[in-house]
């Protein structure tokens, strides 16, 4: 094992650079289509998290954190906040908390689009799942790197 837990494979490393954005876009796609087709916030979050995990294995932990830009802890917090906020609009129209609210938009090129609070909620789920999984994975990998380093490459 090397100190940063990466697999030191040139092919994987090169592939990871391409796969990461593709997988992230795919996760957003899954998130958005989730209401009608298989997908949704939970699955999309897992896909996004696996994408970063792949990058972590292929390159190293520090680069994976840099690519992520946000602290996983913050992602979880924002996700929970978004999730709770999505329940609020219902209160203002006198319905019970979390009753879904929908808006029908007629966009010039895309046609009719329904936007609702459930989508917002799904975004919250998405963020929490990414945050939770990566928080565990990254800190595990980081701790591992440190220990190995300490013991001279274990």
């Amino acid at each position: 094992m090397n100190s940063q837990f990466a697999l030191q494979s040139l092919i994987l490393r090169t592939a990871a650079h391409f796969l990461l954005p593709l997988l992230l876009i795919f996760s957003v796609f899954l998130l958005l289509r989730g209401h009608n087709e298989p997908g949704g916030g939970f699955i999309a979050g897992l896909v996004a998290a696996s994408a970063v995990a792949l990058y972590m294995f292929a390159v190293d932990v520090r680069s994976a954190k840099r690519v992520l830009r946000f602290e996983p802890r913050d992602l979880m917090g924002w996700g929970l906040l978004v999730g709770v906020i999505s329940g609020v609009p219902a209160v203002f129209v006198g319905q019970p908390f979390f009753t879904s609210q929908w808006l029908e938009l007629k966009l010039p090129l895309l046609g009719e689009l329904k936007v609702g609070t459930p989508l917002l909620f799904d975004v919250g789920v998405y963020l929490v799942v990414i945050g939770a999984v990566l928080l565990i994975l990254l800190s595990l990998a980081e701790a591992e790197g440190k220990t190995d380093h300490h013991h001279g490459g274990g």
Partner: protein
Amino acid sequence: MGVLLAVLSGFVIAAVAPWVHRGLGRHGGWVLAALPAALFIYFASFLPGLGEAEGGRFILEYDWIPSLGIQLSFLVDGLSLLFALLISGIGFFVVAYAGRYLEGHRDLGRFYVLILAFMASMLGLVLSSNLISLFVFWELTSITSYLLIGYNHEDAKARKSALQGLFVTVAGGLALLTGLIMMALVGGSYELHELLTSGDIFREHDWYMGILLLVLLGCFTKSAQYPFHFWLPNAMAAPTPVSAYLHSATMVKAGVYLMARLNPSLGGTEAWMLLLGLFGAVTMFVGVFLSLRSTGIKQLLAYSTVMALGTLTMLIGVGSETAMLAAMAFLLAHSLYKGALFLVAGILDHEAGCKDILQTGGLRRALPVTTAFAGLAALSLAGVLPALGFVAKELLFEAVLEAPALAGLLSILAVVSAMMVVAVAAIIGIRPWYGPRADTPKRPAHEAPPALLAGPVVLASLGLLFGLGAGWVDQGLISWAAAAVYGAPVSPYLSLWHGFNLPLLLSGVSLALGLLLYLNWERFRRFTGFMEVANRYGPEAAYEKSMSGMVWLSGWQTRVLQNGYLRYYLLTILVSTVGLVMVTLFTRTDVNIDLDLSGILVHEAFIVAVLLMAALVSVTTRSRLGAVASLGAVGFCVALIYVLFSAADVGITQVLVETLTVIMLVLVLFRLPGFLGLTPMALRIRDALIALAVGTMMAVLKLAASTTQYADSISDYFIQESQPSGYGRNIVNVILVDFRALDTLGEIVVLALAAVGVYAMIKFRAEDRK
């Protein structure tokens, strides 16, 4: 809004008190004391109207939560007015006194907050007509008392005493709450003014004994009745104004108030008379006995307060018209002289630095005014003609002599106690002031300032004036209060002179013997030295033991339940789940398992076979990586089954979760030491059996669930409504984010918490290794 405003004003002023104190400095005490003074005048204005009010009482109701039909209601009658006047009147002197007594103390602002909040709570308690609001105020007085006893919070003894007082009174409070709710259920109302007229309903109800014991437990702990008396002397750790106010004149009488208040509903039975009479009489005797044994000034006064509380309880138990009059007169007299004497004790401490009676002596020249009014208050305490204490003592003797039960016993105890009280009065009224000048810790340079003297002077003088004008006080207030307790009109009876009769004789005898006892005080303390042994086995020792017992018990159960071994947690959870589910399944339901294997296709059977093999490998392999890999195989097989049975979403999730789990396991694997077969065979067999039992349980449960239908499945509703009201064709997702969004929110919160937990664990381990 009058009464409501009167009760709440204390809380409002308490909230701004620190700024008043900061802004006005040493005059803050007098300014803040204006509130109790105004309240006193307000409550006094009710007095003339009592005669015209229906039943001698006013009922005031305010909407509190109108949508639920909950009202905040107040009951103003003789009893509540007597208390309200004492609370606001003595409150005035105490707040003004504290401003000077605690001058320069860095927490004086906080003291004002607490004492005013206490005053408001106490007013709320005695004026409430609603049982629930009464209880809330009751507990508020316990909490403010706790904070005030622990005012010098850097002193470990003060903290300990505060906690002791809180535990004892709040434990009683819990019992009281239960008792009050039971009362409301029996009486069909939470309003005191409705319950008080329906006494027979309670006395004949099966729950009567339960209600009585629970309510009395609350009252006895609050009013420091034997064997719960020990917290009160310890509460003297509080600053002296607090002792004078809470632990003598007002709060400790809350229990007495409630017993008096509920007398029309719960009183008049044999159980009531015996319980109150006996506990009261014993408390009275034990209190005055311990008072005579103490030399600490506040200690001595505290025990004599215990004696007074016992006397009041006993009188309420006796229950006759005379007894009620005696109780109310005694209550008034006691609050006046004991308030005055505590404030005098504070002056002794403040000016001469004396906390113990043996340190004092010959202070009359230095403190002439204090000497005079301490003597006056002591006269009332001793029950010497013409003070109000004398009137009360006469009535007390008359009431116990005519008591319907236990008259002999109560009379003997009352006379012996009265004799000892005379000695106590002499100790506080004579000993510090006369005789040779003692070498006190501080030499008083001059008489105490007006703020400190105002309370003792006025309260002690009132004790004398009310004695002289006993009939007038009786007609104005005491007989109204007694009527509220008695539950029927009471004709005024108080007067200074009832002629030569047995009570007067007993009064004279107790006075003479008491003075004799005072002269032999040191001998008395020496002779009763053996009583120290009782400390080791008394109620306080029992309290200490039960406290340390509770700590031991919680330590023990934590060690057993929270042992820190994951394997034992799992074992406990799994075994109890299997046990409970199986028992319920076979005793409460008729399990009907319909196992039909005919429809299984070849590829399905193949997947199941692979799954089983992978599971077997994962538990038998001797390589960690192999175990992880085969567990992954199990997961993927399960995912495959989901997909086959068209649960695409669940299948995808399973695959992803499985992938990430394997990654995490791999990351963790490297941290573990080499694989060793340390567990003996017997343990492995036990674990295998448990695993099999859990698996069997789940299988049985699943099969039973698919053949038994208790209610219509909700899936049909979701399938129907998903598109029209959820605007989504993916039912699983619509359920997650719309129909059951709140559940999902809970789940993601749990997920986040779990992640934070794992993160903390990893980080702390990493920190440790550095």
